[in-house]
């Protein structure tokens, strides 16, 4: 999911940087003092997540966790993912500094979109079932949408949108399921132990808008 240096044209890099800055500003504005620690913890989870390889069949894939970050943080996923991606670029050479904006936007915005889907499903289906289904969809959608957005960024290279999207979605299909399950278990665990953490995510849009 990390696009490397030197693949994208300056126009795409610039657009990605602008969108990432806008998303991060929005995320920081909506960020409340009490949730800052949560943002840090999820940033750390995202930072380490891509080092965890899940063996599936003959191959293995690494976690992205942007769906989980999005579902738990909403718009605050942007600063959280930006910090993690910056450190991944500096320390692991995943992605790079010039592509930081594009990578932040593809993974951050996918997280935010899956947060909206998560909230929508929770409104439609109340109770534990709704929570589980919503969290699973949120986690899985995070990866799927990130793949689509990454393909969109690659649309202006030699590869083209359709090839890239097909390859990325195909490669990440098992990860979608794994992350859907991870998000489902994490969210239902938090709902049992620290329900206020989820409620805050819900309250945040009407209050700050």
């Amino acid at each position, binding site marked *: 999911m990390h696009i490397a240096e030197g693949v994208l044209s300056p126009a795409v890099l610039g657009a990605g940087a602008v969108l990432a800055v806008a998303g991060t500003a929005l995320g920081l504005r909506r960020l409340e003092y009490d949730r800052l620690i949560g943002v*840090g913890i999820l940033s750390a989870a995202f930072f380490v997540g891509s080092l965890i390889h899940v063996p599936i069949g003959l191959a293995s894939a690494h976690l992205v966790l942007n769906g989980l970050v999005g579902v738990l943080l909403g718009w605050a996923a942007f600063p959280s993912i930006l910090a993690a991606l910056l450190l991944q670029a500096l320390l692991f050479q995943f992605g790079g500094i010039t592509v930081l904006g594009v990578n932040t936007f593809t993974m951050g915005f996918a997280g935010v979109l899956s947060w909206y889907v998560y909230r929508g499903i929770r409104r439609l289906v109340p109770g534990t079932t709704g929570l589980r289904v919503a969290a699973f969809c949120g986690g899985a959608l995070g990866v799927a949408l990130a793949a689509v957005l990454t393909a969109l960024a690659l649309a202006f290279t030699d590869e083209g949108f359709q090839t*890239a999207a097909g390859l990325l979605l195909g490669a990440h299909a098992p990860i979608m399921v794994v992350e859907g399950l991870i998000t489902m278990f994490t969210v239902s665990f938090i709902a049992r132990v620290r329900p206020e953490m989820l409620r805050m995510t819900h309250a945040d849009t009407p209050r700050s808008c």
Partner: protein
Amino acid sequence: MTTISFLSRRACRAVALSVALLLFCADVALAHRVNIFAWLEGDSVAVECSFRRNAPVKGGTITVFDDTGAEVLRGTTDADGRFSFPVSQVVRKGHGLRIRINAGEGHQNEWRMDAAEFAGLAPAVVTAPTAAAAPVPARTDAQPEQLVSLTREELAAIVNGALERQLAPLRRELAARSEEGPRLQDIVGGLGWIMGLVGMGLYFARRRP
């Protein structure tokens, strides 16, 4: 209970489907970055590309550039992620090389070989034909009794050849060393950074009224 069994049954089916899909396209890249390293092997440059250990880049596009940025040659990696090409005339003119691998889906990386790396090679190869042509008959006339008479250049060529055979695996090892994955220090350091950023955020948020 029914919802859980429904969910788990659905999850099982999804996992089975994705495993089938993954086996179908096992060659698909599932990595955050692609590694490339190249080393001198006699008169040719060997290139090796991988996503991780035991995950070679099959059919990736290799492009070789000289110092001025002009394309020298192009090729594709084999099933082991290897590609090798003879050291071209450009290098003999004192140029270094920039070798780029593009593995698709935004995975790209480069490896630089400085002109200095070819320094030992260039003069030896260039002078070899002239050395073989001119002085050899002259010397054999001068010392007919000796079993084998070697000119300084011939000796140098033999020593260089033997040395090259011994050095090639060492060079590969050295080049491969630079492409190792993230170390524990990097991971722990990154987590420390995130903690520090959260601390800073908390500090500044607290000072705000």
